[in-house]
């Protein structure tokens, strides 16, 4: 049998650990005597194999044992003891407070919209039919209030535009002697408008309602 470098590599561990049979051992040693590369490799493997078991172990990071215990049995043991604390801490958190505030605001707006007195809530208030009616009524009332406000605004603008129109219109020259001086004429118009203001408001309101209807 021809003993090659491949054989040497394959049987190197057995050779170094003294596990080779006498025949193979002799072939191996004969090859190593001739082959410098295999001899160098055998020496290096023998050296590092001898050093590896004595290398200093890595230092375990401080706190690792604690973290392992916490992740396994530790938390399970502490859970019972701190469960109430955990709940309280949760209740006091800003997120919970914000949520609570939002819910309270929503309930207040709903009670206003549904015309429910929070101090005297009855079973009837919670009846869906009554809830619908109350909401419907509130909606109509709100709409009517809004409409009235818009109409009032219209009247005000109407008066203002009339006044501006009156002051902006140039007085014809031929009528100037007949009429009172311009400031007096303007004053008269203002008085007229003020006198008829209420009826004008009503008229515009009706017109507005008519338009809406």
């Amino acid at each position, binding site marked *: 049998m021809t003993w090659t470098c491949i054989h040497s590599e394959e049987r190197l561990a057995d050779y170094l650990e003294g596990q080779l049979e006498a025949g193979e051992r002799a072939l191996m040693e004969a090859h190593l005597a001739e082959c410098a590369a295999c001899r160098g490799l055998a*020496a290096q493997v023998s050296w590092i194999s001898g050093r590896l078991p004595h*290398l200093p172990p890595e230092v375990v990071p401080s706190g*690792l044992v604690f973290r392992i215990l916490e992740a396994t049995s530790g938390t399970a043991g502490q859970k019972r003891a701190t469960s109430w604390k955990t709940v309280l801490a949760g209740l006091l958190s800003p997120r919970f407070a914000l949520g609570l505030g939002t819910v309270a605001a929503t309930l207040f707006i709903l009670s206003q919209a549904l015309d429910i007195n929070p101090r005297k809530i009855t079973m009837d208030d919670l009846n869906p039919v009554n809830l619908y009616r109350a909401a419907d009524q509130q909606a109509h009332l709100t709409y009517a209030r809004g409409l009235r406000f818009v109409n009032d605004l219209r009247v005000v603008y109407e008066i203002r535009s009339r006044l501006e129109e009156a002051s902006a219109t140039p007085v014809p020259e031929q009528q100037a002697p007949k009429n009172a001086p311009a400031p007096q004429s303007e004053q008269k118009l203002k008085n007229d408008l003020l006198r008829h203001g209420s009826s004008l408001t009503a008229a515009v309101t009706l017109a507005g309602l008519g338009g809406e209807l």
Partner: protein
Amino acid sequence: MEPDSQLVAHCLRGEAAAWEELVRRHTRRVYNLAYRFTSNRQEAEDLSQEVFLRIYRTLASYRAVHGEFTTWLTSVTRNLLIDHYRRTRRDRLTDSIDEEGSPAEHKAAPGRRPDEVASASELSVQVQQALGKISPELREAVILRDLQGLDYREIQQVLSVPEGTVKSRINRGRIELARLLTQMGVTGDSAS
């Protein structure tokens, strides 16, 4: 010292102190195995936690008749390491492509004189660098045998491969490690 199997029995009866003792006794072994395999302290730490979490959950399935607790623990660790290796393979491939432009890492350590004695901690770092370059199959075999001190039978159980395969992997692993260290300028001649 109470044997591991008895500690396990106490743990299963709900004794927290027994579990704590088991964790304290074996954290170093698990962490070192994880670090030697991954070459990353943070990953080794995370994996150690994962290992003990798995052990804690499956402790009831451990049977002393099937072997030493240490062997079972090592098997669990090794399986998680392989899972981790497969999970992170894509990242490592990207990293190795990024590093291609950097100077060759195989060149001899600069400034080393032949008579310079490598300290054990220095050698530990160099071995770690070399371990990271050999295939995971050979790496785990060398770590289990030479750094963790397991015998062939135990490694056979941990890796679930025949004894011949275990021996062959350890042999090839040592040879690759020796060649890499030679390329790095770390030899028995320079250290002695």
